[in-house]
C-alpha cells in the first residue's frame, strides 16, 4: 500500500513564538501544515519531495528555512505515518525512515509511544505492557477484532497505528468539506480577545452541527483573514476529535501569535473547515471489562425481548459431544449472564478436546437448519425394502428413496453410516445410533439431509438449507 509520506519538525524546547515563526516560514515549503503538539508540526511530503528533488533535500530545506527565521536546533523526522515521523524526529538529530523500513521501524517501537504521541490512554498502554505486548510489532500481531473486543475503539485504533496506518490520512490538499462554518466581520477585529471570542462561537457552531449527526471533528483547517487579505491557515488534528473548548484553545494559540506579527489590518473573516470526522464516543470506552455502545444497546434490547418473548430469547452455549446438531445448545438468555464478557466468551468456546478429532463425528460440513422436533422418515431401497444399519455398521442395502410422509424422494447419493455409541457406560442413557448424510432429489433440486438411525427407525434431524 502506498502511504503518504510526512515530515515532523520538532523543536528542542517548548516555545510558542518559535513554533509559530517556524510554521509561518514553512508555509513557503508546503501548504496544509498540521500542528502536532506544543513543540512540533507536520508537513505532507508528497509535493515538496517532487519539487525539491528528494526527501533529503526537503529536510535540508526545512532546516535552512528554520535557521533563516532564527530557529536553530530543529529535528526533522520523515516517515510513512504520523506516528513513525514523530518518533523519527525524536531520534538524534532527526532521521528519515524509508518506506521500505516503515514496518520494521514501527514494530520495534515500545508501546509507550502510543501514549506519548498518539493520544492513547495511559491505562490502556499499561495494560498492554502487563499483557506482555511490549512493542508495536506485538500489538500488530494480535488480531484486530480481538483488540477491538478487549479495548473497544481504542483497540481498533491501536491496531491501525501499530500496523503502520494513520487513523486519518494526511492530505496535502483540502478534501471535500464535512462541515464549514465562517463569520464575516464588517468592523474588522483588532483585539485578540475579540477574535478568540468570534472563533469560540464558530467552534461551538461546528460542534453543534456535528453533534446531532453523532460526529466529532478530528481534522480541521482554521483560517483567519485580515481586511487586506493576509491570512493564516493551520490544520489542527486530534485523533479522538475536538470539543468546542479544545478547539478554541488551539485557535487562541494560532491567532494570538499571529496578531503579534506586523499585520496591516484587523481580522475580517474567520472560518473552520472540517476535513475529517469520527463517530462520537458517547462514553469513555475501552478498559478491560468495559463495553462499547453496541454491547450496551444489545443487552438492553435483550432485556426488552425477554419481556416480550420470555424463554423464546436464547443464546448459544457450548455443550460438546459428537452430535453436530447439539454441540451448541440454545439456552434462555434470562438464565445466563450475558453481560459478563469472560463468562459469555467461555459459554461459547469449545472445550479443550476439539470435537473434530473424535471418531463417529460426521465429516465435512454440518447441517445449517435443525429439524425440530425430529421427523420420522423411512429409508428404503429400490425394491421397497427398509434399509437398516447392520451390526457391522453397513447399510443392509443401498438406500434408494427417503419416504417423508406421503412423499418419496429419490436418493441421489448417500454417505455414511457413521455409527456412534453414546454414554455406553450408562445403562439408562446409552444410545446406539448411526448418522447418514444423503442427497435427495426434491422437485428436481438436490437437497442434502442428515438422517439418524436409531432402533431400526430413521429420523430426519437436519437440513443443509
Amino acid at each position, binding site marked *: 500500500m502506498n502511504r503518504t509520506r510526512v515530515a515532523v519538525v520538532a523543536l528542542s524546547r517548548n516555545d510558542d513564538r518559535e513554533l509559530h515563526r517556524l510554521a509561518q516560514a514553512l508555509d513557503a515549503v508546503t501548504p496544509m501544515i498540521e500542528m502536532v503538539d506544543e513543540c512540533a508540526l507536520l508537513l505532507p511530503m508528497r509535493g515538496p519531495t517532487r519539487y525539491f528533488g528528494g526527501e533529503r533535500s526537503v529536510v535540508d530545506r526545512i532546516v535552512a528555512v528554520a535557521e533563516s527565521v532564527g530557529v536553530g536546533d530543529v529535528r526533522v523526522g520523515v516517515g510513512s505515518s504520523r506516528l513513525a515521523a514523530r518518533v523519527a524526529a525524536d531520534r538524534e538529530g532527526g532521521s528519515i525512515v524509508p518506506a521500505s523500513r516503515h514496518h520494521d521501524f514501527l514494530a520495534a517501537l515500545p508501546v509507550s509511544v502510543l501514549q506519548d504521541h498518539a493520544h492513547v490512554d495511559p491505562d490502556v498502554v499499561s495494560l498492554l505492557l502487563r499483557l506482555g505486548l511490549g512493542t508495536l510489532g506485538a500489538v500488530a500481531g494480535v488480531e484486530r477484532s480481538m483488540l477491538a473486543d478487549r479495548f473497544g475503539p481504542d483497540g481498533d485504533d491501536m491496531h491501525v497505528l501499530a500496523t503502520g496506518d494513520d487513523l486519518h490520512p494526511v492530505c496535502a490538499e483540502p*478534501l471535500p468539506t464535512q462541515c464549514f462554518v465562517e463569520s464575516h466581520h464588517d468592523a474588522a477585529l483588532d483585539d485578540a480577545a475579540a477574535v478568540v471570542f468570534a472563533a469560540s462561537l464558530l467552534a461551538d457552531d461546528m460542534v453543534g452541527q456535528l453533534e446531532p449527526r*453523532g460526529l466529532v471533528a478530528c481534522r480541521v483547517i482554521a483560517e483567519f483573514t485580515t481586511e487586506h487579505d493576509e491570512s493564516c491557515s493551520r490544520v489542527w488534528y486530534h485523533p479522538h476529535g475536538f470539543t468546542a473548548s479544545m478547539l478554541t484553545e488551539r485557535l487562541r494559540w494560532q491567532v494570538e501569535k499571529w496578531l503579534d506579527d506586523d499585520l496591516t489590518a484587523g481580522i475580517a473573516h474567520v472560518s473552520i473547515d472540517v476535513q475529517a470526522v469520527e463517530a462520537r464516543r458517547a462514553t469513555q470506552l475501552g478498559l478491560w471489562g468495559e463495553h462499547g455502545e453496541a454491547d450496551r444497546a*444489545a443487552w438492553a434490547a435483550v432485556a426488552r425481548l425477554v419481556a416480550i418473548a420470555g424463554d423464546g430469547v436464547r443464546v*448459544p452455549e457450548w455443550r460438546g459431544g459428537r452430535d*453436530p446438531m447439539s454441540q451448541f445448545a440454545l439456552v434462555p438468555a434470562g438464565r445466563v449472564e450475558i453481560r459478563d464478557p469472560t463468562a459469555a466468551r467461555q459459554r461459547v468456546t469449545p472445550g479443550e478436546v476439539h470435537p473434530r478429532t473424535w471418531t463417529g463425528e460426521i465429516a465435512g460440513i454440518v447441517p*445449517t*437448519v*435443525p429439524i425440530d422436533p425430529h421427523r420420522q422418515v423411512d429409508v428404503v431401497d429400490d425394491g421397497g425394502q427398509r434399509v437398516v444399519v447392520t451390526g457391522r455398521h453397513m447399510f443392509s442395502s443401498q438406500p434408494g428413496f427417503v419416504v417423508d410422509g406421503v412423499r418419496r424422494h429419490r436418493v441421489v447419493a448417500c*454417505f455414511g453410516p457413521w455409527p456412534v455409541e453414546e454414554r455406553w457406560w450408562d445403562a439408562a442413557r446409552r444410545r446406539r445410533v448411526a448418522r447418514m448424510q444423503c442427497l435427495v432429489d426434491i422437485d428436481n433440486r438436490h437437497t442434502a439431509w442428515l438422517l439418524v438411525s436409531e432402533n431400526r427407525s430413521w429420523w430426519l434431524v437436519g437440513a443443509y438449507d
Partner: protein
Amino acid sequence: MSSPASLKQIPANVLSAANVTTLSRAVLKRDRSIPVAGRIADALRAAGLAGGLPRGSVCAVTGAAPVALTALLLAEANASGAWVAWCAATSPNVRALFDAGWQLDRVVCVDPQRDWVACMNACVGEFEIVVTQIPSTVAPAEVRRMSTAVSRSNGVVVVVGGEPQRPVSADLEFRVEGCNWTGVDGGHLSAQDMRVTLGGRRIPDPRPFRVVYGPS
C-alpha cells in the same frame, strides 16, 4: 445518527481507486457499510457497493440454501464486532454458524412466537444485524413499517427464505439458484458450491456469482 447522504451524492467514478481509501477512512467511517468477506464482497464491489451491505437496508436471502448463504454473508460483520439477532421461528444450527466463523457471544436467537412485530420493534435499531423470517400472518403494512424503521437505523435486516411474492421489497436480494455439492466422491459432503444471483432494488442489473460454503 449520521446519514449516508454524503456518500450518495458522490458519483461512482469518484469512489474508485485512490479516492476510496482516503474517503472511506476519513469521511465515511461511521457510514461504512456492514463488512462482508470473500466472494460476496467481490460481487457487491462489482455492483458498486464498496464491498459491504449498506446500513439501513433490507436484504433478502432466498432460494435453495438461504441459511448457509446467510451464515457466510454475516460472518465477517459478526466476527468484527456486530451483534446479530436471529429473530425467526426456526433457529439455525449454531455449530454451522461457528464453522462459518461467527463470534457466538454476540448472537441472540429469538423465537417471536405470535408477536413478530413487537420482537422486530425491539430488535431493529438496537442490533446491528437482524435476521428474520417473515411469518405469513404478518400484514404487508407491518412489513413496510419495519422496512421504514430499518432505513432510519444504522443496521441491516436480512430476511431469510420466504415466498417469491413476499411482501417486502428488498434493497439487495441474494438468490441461491442452485448448489453443487463437493465431496460426493470422497465419502462425505465437504462443501456446498452455491450459484447466487445478486439482485434487488439497488442492483439494476442482477449479476451472478459463485460462493462456497464449507472449508476452502
